[in-house]
């Protein structure tokens, strides 16, 4: 353990954290919506655009070689980071949403038919519900949700019952909930799903920034995440899939790069991962994503996870002293997410009054409306979310700010 705290060591890497909002120092507690970017990522992207930008893969010239090496290097980096068996299992997408849609539409086409079930949980993000609803509607299948307990943990009994009752073709579930913070016991769930003959897709959007990930150990069939929540750029994410599944799936988007040969008589498709990567990719995004992974690795995922666990504990206890406030989501294992409501007060009002004090939080349903409905929170919650750069002092400032807000609103 270093003697200086993690945020002390890294905060200067984040230019935005030096700024003020409404005349107050910015307190950024909205990292689950999108994390801020370290200089290495910002400068890496700039360096690319300033020095070796070119379209990749088919170019024979030097810049195209450099750009291709950097982009494909990021793929290798990512494959190693999540324990993929090879780079052909990594499909770059424009984010988690795009990745889930890819599976829902491509895998769904040959694997979902009338009466089939896709099992999800009640704590899924819309990105892991709506694509399945759309795919199921197209094929006469249906989506069924697994119950979530009032404390924000998954109802394991119901999970097993649902596997039994519905015999789902696929189980789509979140690794860590963006609203509750809950970390689900993914390897157990995947084992049970596999035993019941179902494939599994894990939405790792909130896990990638917070913990080390090993898809082999998790035992899932598909894993998706998005770079912008993990200190990387916007517009890029990935789908990891077991090679056998990806091989069997038809392409989803057509165009350049994903073909082997095009003619009006018939077109043949490229091998993995290119089959699923039509068109010019987000080259600078891929390269900067790789840099973000290096940045996280430089700190160590375990240290990040430990730091965030401390922050969550600190927030839980500080908020415990605020009258009328109730924390939503108190699972024993959480990522750096703390949702709360205050009796009789609209979360939007609290969020606005925190913003007036320079404190950025998110309010509303956090793209988890079914969860909010299930928990009876029709106005949603106020969510504070943390990252490696978040300090306990910031949480204290936010809690004090919240008390001031509540005083004004009561």
């Amino acid at each position, binding site marked *: 353990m270093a003697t200086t705290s993690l945020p002390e060591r890294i905060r200067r890497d984040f230019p935005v954290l030096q700024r003020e909002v409404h005349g107050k120092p910015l307190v950024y507690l909205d990292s689950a919506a999108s994390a801020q970017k370290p200089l290495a990522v910002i400068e890496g992207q700039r360096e690319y655009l300033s020095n070796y930008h070119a379209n990749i893969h088919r170019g024979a010239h030097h810049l195209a070689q450099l750009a291709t090496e950097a982009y494909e290097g990021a793929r290798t980096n990512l494959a190693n980071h999540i324990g993929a068996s090879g780079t052909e299992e990594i499909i770059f997408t424009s984010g988690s949403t795009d990745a889930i849609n890819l599976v829902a539409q491509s895998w769904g086409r040959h694997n979902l038919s009338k009466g089939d079930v896709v099992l999800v949980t009640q704590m899924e993000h819309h990105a892991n519900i709506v694509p399945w609803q759309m795919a199921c509607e197209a094929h006469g299948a249906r989506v069924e949700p697994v119950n979530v307990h009032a404390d924000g943990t998954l109802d394991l009994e119901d999970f097993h019952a649902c596997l039994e009752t519905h015999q789902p073709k696929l189980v789509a579930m979140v690794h860590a909930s963006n609203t509750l913070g809950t970390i689900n016991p993914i390897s157990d769930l995947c084992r049970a799903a596999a035993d019941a003959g179902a494939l599994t897709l894990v939405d790792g959007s909130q896990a990638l920034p917070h913990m080390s990930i090993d898809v082999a150990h998790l035992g899932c069939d598909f894993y998706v995440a998005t770079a912008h929540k993990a200190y990387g750029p916007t517009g890029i994410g990935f789908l990891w899939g077991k090679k056998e599944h990806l091989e069997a799936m038809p392409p989803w988007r057509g165009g350049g790069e994903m073909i082997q040969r095009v003619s009006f008589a018939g077109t043949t498709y490229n091998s993995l991962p290119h089959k699923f990567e039509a068109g010019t990719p987000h080259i600078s995004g891929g390269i900067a994503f790789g840099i973000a992974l290096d940045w996280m690795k430089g700190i160590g995922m375990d240290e990040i996870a430990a730091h965030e666990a401390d922050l969550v504990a600190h927030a839980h206890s500080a908020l415990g002293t605020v009258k009328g406030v109730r924390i939503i989501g108190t699972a024993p294992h959480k990522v750096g997410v703390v949702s709360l409501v205050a009796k009789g007060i*609209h979360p*939007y*009002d609290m969020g*606005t009054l925190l*913003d*007036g004090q320079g404190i950025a939080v998110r309010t509303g349903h956090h793209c988890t409306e079914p969860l909010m409905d299930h928990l009876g929170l029709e*106005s*949603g919650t106020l969510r504070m979310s943390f990252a490696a750069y978040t300090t306990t002092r910031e949480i204290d400032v936010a809690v004090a700010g919240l008390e001031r807000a509540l005083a*004004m*609103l009561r």
Partner: protein
Amino acid sequence: MASNHPLIESRQQEVIEDFSVFDDWMDKYEHLIDLGKDVPVIDDARKTEEHLIKGCQSRVWLAADVADDGGVIFTADSDAIITKGLVGLMVRVLSDAPAQAIAEANLHFLDAIGLHQHLSPTRSNGLASMVQQMRLYAAALAARQS
């Protein structure tokens, strides 16, 4: 949008003056919260889907009626206090003016008091939607009058 109706213009000047004493956002919000308390509240019976404004994170209901003197009377409510303050602010500036004048009003005061950023096409707060809805109501009433 040419020059404003005198009523709307003078109300805007009043609001600008009121807000000029605040150099802190928290004071502005405090004032908005107060404004919300004076909103002429919409009848509970009219809090229906029809009067709900789309595009707000909180729920806002708004209705427009014509008074005997031809001025428009807005009534409103919201389940969020600051949103209610925002709608109260708009009601304060626009109520009682003729429909046509409301439909065409140049709401420069929002800029002056620093609330124009709340007009950005974000879907989190409903100020832009409120303003649009008030103009739509007014335009409809104006059309009916002519």
